[in-house]
């Protein structure tokens, strides 16, 4: 209690619980809603908000020039995410809404939508039960900066904004082949997206306004407006190239909307690096420790330190080292938990490598409460491992380590006296690798949220991959 004399020790279960349940994001969302609506009675408002439980429903805006395929993408996303599609047309459609009737009249008279009416229609639609429960996808709205600002002012904020883009010439040509199915409203194309069933083919109609001149005019209007809308969504925007097959565009869009953005939640990395010998685990761990201040915990090193330091663990471990036998799991766990429970590990986070080697050890690690929150499997093909390890040499005079391919010795004289570690011969490496891969499948199953990294590249590329895996929130697996 007395923070003046001793620092507080927060039990590690608290930050783990906070991370798993995304407590920070929960509170942040609630605070956002409170600030947008500023209800007179905050408590009933908060109760309703929590009961809705709609923090993760899709809230997407899709923008793009005519003929970019945005309606198609919007409809596919809607079907896939079971959400609601909102377009200019279907906002005006409802028969029972007086507001929609007013909007329809206005549109018929002026041939254009009034911004205030549009925004009010959106507000009304978004308050309906299905939009609250299953989210919404706006197709082609906002079309102008005024609309974007008005939507923002009434408190509607999308979580993902996708902007499709393609060269104008492609779009003008594409638009000429546009065909619409009057029954379902789906859009087809004579070349790129032709429906297989002949009965659909027969009823397709040519929509109005697709001649080259009209498309060019619409494109001009679009470019004028989009340049002023995009800056309104700085962190949540993604531009996708629409000049590819629409399936590709769809998959890019789907992956994007299913990722969460980085939040400011407090996060202490507890990283586990797995990989066969020679995959670069120690190097990556050292780089991570250096850049992020994490504690580098190398299991083998810990044991050797215990022996060297002649602690009571060291005495227990020594006989195993002398007989060259594997140290039993219980002793390893004790040494490891002593290290991981120290203040600097809890505060700054850790990078663990060299442990666990099989399923039992992994389960023991979990049961002690030291679950890692990021796990990486470093994949290296067998030949690369052999190359990396068998060419290692040591200079006995200076103690410098060399590699005949990646870091060759500078002079022939040094090269003549280099020695090789007997553990680095091909047979020994093969034995160790066999052992590793035997346990690999079980461990892969156990750590289902692990990221696989191709470690057969230069160390800094691998490091960047691992970094992005740690910094970004864990990807949601596509069901």
């Amino acid at each position, binding site marked *: *209690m*007395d*923070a*003046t004399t001793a620092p507080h020790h927060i039990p590690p*279960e*608290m930050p783990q*619980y*906070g991370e798993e*349940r995304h*407590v920070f994001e*929960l*509170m942040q969302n*609630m*605070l956002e809603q*409170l*600030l947008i609506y*500023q209800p007179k009675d*905050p*408590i*009933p408002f*908060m*109760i309703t908000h*929590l*009961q809705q*439980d709609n923090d993760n429903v899709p809230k997407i805006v899709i923008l793009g020039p005519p003929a970019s395929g945005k309606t198609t993408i919007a409809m596919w996303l809607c079907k896939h995410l079971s959400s609601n599609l909102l377009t200019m047309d279907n906002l005006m459609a409802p028969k029972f809404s007086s507001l929609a009737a007013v909007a329809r009249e206005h549109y018929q008279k002026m041939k254009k939508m009034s911004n205030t009416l549009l925004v009010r229609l959106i507000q009304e639609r978004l308050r309906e039960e299905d939009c609250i429960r299953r989210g919404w996808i706006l197709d082609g709205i906002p079309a102008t900066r005024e609309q974007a600002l008005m939507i923002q002012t009434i408190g509607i904020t999308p979580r993902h904004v996708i902007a499709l883009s393609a060269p104008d010439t492609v779009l003008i040509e594409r638009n000429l082949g546009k065909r619409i199915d009057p029954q379902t409203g789906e859009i087809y194309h004579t070349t790129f997206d032709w429906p297989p069933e002949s009965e659909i083919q027969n009823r397709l109609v040519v929509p109005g306004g697709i001649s080259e001149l009209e498309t060019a005019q619409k494109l001009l209007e679009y470019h004028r407006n989009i340049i002023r809308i995009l800056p309104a969504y700085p962190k949540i925007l993604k531009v996708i190239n629409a000049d590819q097959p629409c399936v590709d565009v769809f998959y890019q869009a789907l992956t994007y909307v299913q990722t969460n953005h980085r939040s400011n939640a407090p996060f202490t990395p507890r990283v586990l690096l797995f990989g066969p010998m020679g995959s670069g685990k120690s190097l990556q761990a050292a780089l991570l420790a250096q850049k992020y201040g994490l504690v580098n915990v190398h299991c083998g090193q810990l044991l050797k330190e215990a022996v060297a330091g002649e602690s009571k663990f060291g005495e227990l471990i020594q006989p195993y080292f002398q007989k060259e036998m594997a140290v039993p799991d219980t002793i390893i766990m004790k040494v490891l938990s002593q290290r991981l429970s120290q203040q600097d590990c809890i505060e700054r986070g850790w990078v663990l490598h060299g442990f666990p080697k099989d399923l039992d050890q992994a389960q023991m690690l979990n049961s002690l409460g030291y679950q890692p929150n990021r796990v990486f499997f470093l994949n290296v093909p067998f030949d690369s491992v052999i190359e990396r390890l068998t060419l290692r040499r040591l200079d006995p005079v200076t103690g410098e380590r060399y590699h005949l391919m990646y870091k060759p010795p500078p002079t022939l004289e040094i090269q003549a006296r280099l020695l090789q570690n007997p553990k680095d011969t091909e047979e020994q490496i093969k034995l160790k690798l066999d052992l590793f891969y035997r346990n690999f499948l079980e461990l892969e199953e156990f750590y289902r949220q692990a990221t696989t990294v191709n470690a057969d590249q230069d160390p800094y590329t691998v490091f960047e991959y691992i970094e992005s895996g740690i910094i970004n929130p864990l990807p949601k697996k596509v069901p």
Partner: protein
Amino acid sequence: MQAGGSREQEARNYLEKHRIMELLSYLTSALLFFRPEKPREYLISILERLRIAKITGVAFPFFMDHSNIVAMFEMMDTSSKGTISFVQYKEALKTLGLLNKDEVLIDDGHIITLDKFRAEVNKRTEEIWSSF
């Protein structure tokens, strides 16, 4: 922009008036301390109790009850003289989240006994809760 500035000010006033940050801080602490299986349901239950307490005027069960305050005092008063220093008093209030950021406590030279500590903690907690 003028409009932006005033809306921001409005938002800040709203937070102050309803003591939203203290409420959220309390909810987060409760979640992390009790670690319920179903966090949303748990939060809803706390908020419901709070709502009812407000309507019926029944006192809401605070985080720290009498025995906790006594235990805390005894932990700080290591030599059992029955008083704590001013610095300890200030730090304790800060730890409990009962001290506003810019508030400055004046050391009036009097020693702080258990009764005075308890009275102060209760008074501040009452103040915060009455505005929820």
